């Protein structure tokens, strides 16, 4: 009984609360930037995949198939160790800044492939007649994509896009692979401290709750948004 209670010693957790909050803050900064950038990348890729120019289509499908089938850890390691450290492509001399941007870029590039595929399935739900009507009033390909097809495709895949974003938020924990100190890296650091030995389970619980505070409302929000924006046909 005593041993069981020992597992729930919240002392170390609150002793290091500041560090944990900082880890979460770092994670939030990463998730927010990657959320925006992955939507942009995914939208551009989806445009490529339906473009009338074969080279763009090949690039789109090549990118998606390679990135989607590469482990995220590898993508991030390639960004931090490969591009930043080895090739010296640094965003800034400040390590925390350059690794932050590499983590954003790696995570967005990776998530963008999933956003693209979600969007492409959305594009498939838009009846062919919509594109034909758009072309017949003289809109160019990019105009019909931007004004007619994508707005309807987005509305059709709001819910799956929510899942992609939730997965992305959880994937931020892999960013320590890009030498970026977010919550998972902070947790690992804490767990390595001898003084933290008894605080492991509370830390896990705390971090899990922290993620749920973020992801549950995200899920609800996207569910609500999906209902609100649904296109009646």
């Amino acid at each position, binding site marked *: 009984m005593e041993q069981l209670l020992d597992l729930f010693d919240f002392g170390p957790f609150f002793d290091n609360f500041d560090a944990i909050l900082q880890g979460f803050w770092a994670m939030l900064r990463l998730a927010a930037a990657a959320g925006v950038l992955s939507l942009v990348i995914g939208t551009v890729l989806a445009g490529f995949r339906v473009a*009338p120019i074969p080279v763009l289509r090949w690039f789109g499908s090549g990118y998606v198939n390679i990135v989607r089938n590469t482990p995220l850890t590898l993508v991030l390691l390639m960004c931090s160790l490969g591009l930043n450290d080895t090739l010296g492509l640094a965003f800034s001399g400040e390590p925390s800044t350059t690794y932050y941007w590499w983590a954003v870029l790696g995570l967005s590039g990776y998530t963008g492939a999933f956003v693209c595929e979600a969007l492409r399935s959305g594009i498939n739900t838009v*009846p062919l*007649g*919509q594109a*034909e*009507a*758009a*072309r*017949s*009033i*003289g*809109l*160019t390909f990019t*105009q019909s994509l931007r*004004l*007619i097809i994508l*707005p*309807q495709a987005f*509305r059709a895949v709001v819910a799956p896009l929510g899942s992609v974003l939730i997965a992305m938020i959880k994937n931020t924990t892999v960013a320590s692979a890009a030498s970026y100190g977010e919550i998972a890296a902070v947790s690992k650091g804490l767990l390595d401290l001898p003084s933290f030995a008894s605080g492991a389970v509370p830390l896990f619980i705390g971090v899990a709750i922290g993620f749920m505070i973020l992801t549950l409302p995200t899920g609800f929000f996207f569910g609500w948004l999906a209902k609100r924006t649904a*296109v*009646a*046909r």
Partner: protein
Amino acid sequence: MTDNEVGSGAAEGAAPQDASDGPFDATGAGPLVVVENVNKHFGDLHVLRDIDLTVNRGEVVVVIGPSGSGKSTLCRSINRLEPIDSGTILVDGKPLPQEGKDLARLRSDVGMVFQSFNLFSHKTILENVTLGPVKVRKQGKAEAVKNAMALLERVGIADQASKYPAQLSGGQQQRVAIARSLAMKPKVMLFDEPTSALDPEMINEVLDVMTDLARDGMTMIVVTHEMGFARKAAKKVVFMADGQIVESNTPEEFFTNPRSDRAKDFLSKILTH
């Protein structure tokens, strides 16, 4: 472009088929759409065989024929929604350009009304009508809205302007689709079975709008089996079968006195139901 102003009530008093009186650009009579020796295949299927068709300014041509005869394909090839294999298609003297900006410009001069309406479902009725003028013609928003409201008034749906397409009946949607095409001030309008997806009680409201257009001198190519419309509005009826133009005549002659067996057979079928 400026002399084909469309206003409500512009139809008053114009004589049927008298192109020069209407508000549309019917000046300088002569061919507006010329289809010459056009062939098209879908795989092994030869859907258009040596098609020749000339449509003069202000003329209404009705295309009729059995299912699968290539009517839609012909209609769609005129604004290059379907590319053709050989032959030439001239619109206002210019051959159809390759896919790209020039083709987009040409398409904006060729209105198209589809069987399934194809209104943009995420946009309001008003936005459906103003989109083309604003994005393609680079018209100012206020002017586009003013013109759109006048057009919606003309087709009798001004009071529904802020609704979404799914909230309208089929007949209303099709009238909006016509207004959307008209907003581009097209030189010619293509209609591909505009009433065949409609409930019977809605067919007339759409045909009335089309008849008014015809009277106002709009150049129109209409795929339809509505003989009443053909008789009232068309200068010429073109009968297609198996990808060929089998017969071409005035509506009166064609319906009362078809020459080919295919046409006789077809007419007997559509007349009996």
